[in-house]
């Protein structure tokens, strides 16, 4: 995974609540066997008309937001299906950070595993950032993960919380599996214990 770098860019406002992963990437695009290439279909059904042309007033189709790197979103972003295609599509489009008051649990995990930073803020902070985002190309929002700060266009800073382990993985671009395998010996001794305490779990046959 590549390392997370600081951001200074345009943020796209998506004030709707409960934006679900079917909306982020509809099911018919899940036939892919790759992680890349989903960006063109991000938000497909609200971004394009039936004939394939763009819906003009959809936020990411507007000139100011075509290269947005940040999304400021309504509550409970990413609810619904566990598809990791949702963060893949966001990343592939170029989104590096989503700011909201809350995120669905599975989407939250999936995002960090793909280097997509999710920031939780208070409703008042989110609303202020939505207003900033609405100013389009005239307003750049900064994200400083190391110091855990959002920098508003007027220079005001908003501190945010992030799990230290997730932050470390993002900044270093670390792969979870490698980290877990450092605890191999503990996993093996758990397995030995399970073998004696719950022997019925061994070797079930179809």
């Amino acid at each position, binding site marked *: 995974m590549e390392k997370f770098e600081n951001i200074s860019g345009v943020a796209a406002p998506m*004030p*709707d*609540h*409960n934006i*679900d992963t*079917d*909306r982020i990437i*509809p*099911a*018919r695009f*899940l*036939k*892919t*066997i*790759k*992680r890349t290439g989903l960006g063109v279909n991000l938000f497909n*059904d*609200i971004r394009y008309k*039936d004939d394939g042309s763009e819906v003009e007033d959809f936020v990411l189709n507007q000139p100011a937001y075509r290269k947005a790197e940040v999304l400021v979103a*309504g*509550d*409970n972003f990413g*609810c*619904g*299906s*566990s*598809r*990791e295609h949702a*963060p893949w599509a966001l990343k592939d489009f170029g989104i590096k950070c989503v700011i909201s008051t*809350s995120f*669905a*649990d*599975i989407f939250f*995990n*999936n995002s960090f*595993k*793909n280097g997509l930073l999710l920031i939780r803020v208070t409703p008042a902070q989110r609303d202020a950032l939505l207003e900033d985002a609405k100013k389009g190309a005239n307003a750049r929002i900064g994200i400083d993960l190391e110091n855990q700060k959002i920098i508003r266009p007027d220079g005001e800073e908003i501190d945010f919380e992030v*799990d*230290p*382990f997730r932050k470390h993985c993002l900044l270093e671009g670390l792969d*979870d*599996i490698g*980290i*877990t*395998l450092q*605890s191999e010996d*503990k*996993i093996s001794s*758990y*397995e030995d214990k*399970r073998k004696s305490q*719950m*022997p*019925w*779990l*061994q*070797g*079930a*046959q*179809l």
Partner: protein
Amino acid sequence: MAEPKTMFDKIWDSHLVEEKDDGTCIIYIDRQIIHEITSAQAFDGLRDAGRKPRDPGANLLVPDHNVPTTPGRGGIDEIENEDSRVQLEVFDRNAKEFGLPYIPINDVRQGIVHVIGPEQGFTQPGLTLVCGDSHTATHGALGALAFGIGTSEVEHVLATQTLLQKPSKNMRITVNGTPRECVTAKDIILAIIGKIGTAGGTGCVIEYAGEAIENMSIEGRMTVCNMTIEGGARAGLVAPDEKTFEYLKGRPMAPKGAAWEQAVEYWKTLRSDPGAKYDIEVELDASEIEPYVSWGTSPEMVAPIGSVVPNPADIADEAKRSTVEGALKYMGIEAGMKLTDIHVDKVFIGSCTNSRIEDMRAAAAVAKGRKVADSVYAMVVPGSGLVKEQAEAEGLDKIFVEAGFDWREPGCSMCLGMNGDMLQPGERSASTSNRNFQGRQGPGGRTHLVSPAMAAAAAVTGHLTDVRELTAEAAE
């Protein structure tokens, strides 16, 4: 005396491999079910890193999301859509290359991941079970701590048999009382989601308790646990009891002989201790719940069938009001109209929420001797080949076919718009599935979530219907 523990705490504690300084835990994962749409990238990851599955026998592979459900469907090579065919070929190849237990497309045991796990006895009380699918919560009906994960985590489990997690909060939903006639597990869970909202359970594991849950069949408990994710929680749990043991006994992958006795002894220790503490408690009275339907584009937008479409003007909060306005516009319905005046074009009976034998029976009881309305296309998609076989042995397929329903092969089908079974733009369904999101059943499609009996009732009348009117009619 030790602190009383919840069932979630007990399962969590017994699977803790390591707790790091910042509270991140390595949790042992006993079992994983894998399907075709969230696994190709995970297998690629293993291959790229030169890793092997740590415990091949801990996995079970079955295709479901992207398989055609056309009656008499052939093998993978007969699938017309190229992307779908390639995805299933890759899945088949991965299963064989990595030597994993695998139920292929036309095996009689094939079906939806969350139907076949319990059916094969792969799902058992007290274990941790994951799948790259958010409705993995279903398996909690047997007392397993079961939750959905993403593809990176599928790879993580394959490689390490563990996941990095933090403990969830404990939430208990107690459903007291006895449900009225025709009120099913589906109506109860829709009422629960209507009450707590789609983010009500975020960060929690929900334990379902109370008289109505205890009296519910295992199939009904699966329907309830299935939609836990629609309430924002990753996992649902029901304490295992005699019904659970009875359900599991003799299933192909369930323990046998002395191991069975030993397992049951352990399973009996899993229920929450008296006095265990919950972070959130919710109570409902089952006797107050009516048959429910969803009217909007989020599973919390539900109402009893006898009511009307809500009026956004009555909602004070601006963001909520505009969300409801957007939903009504998308759904093509007006504030104040009676829910029973909403006409449907398609009826879908199936999905991991409602495709088990009981669901088939409930729908067939309504369909029997009636005809699907001329304006409606209706389909029944059993959750597995074994459910299909059982239904056919009971003659349910004949009832459906005579009434004008399509009787299909097992799979996820129209629950999600990807495998050919889809709504066309603007079409409206009554569906026994679990999600009514915009475009969930096909771009521009409109979904009303209902129970199997209510779906069958909508099929024969052509509009959302209180099934009790049909049953009362029949009794006269």
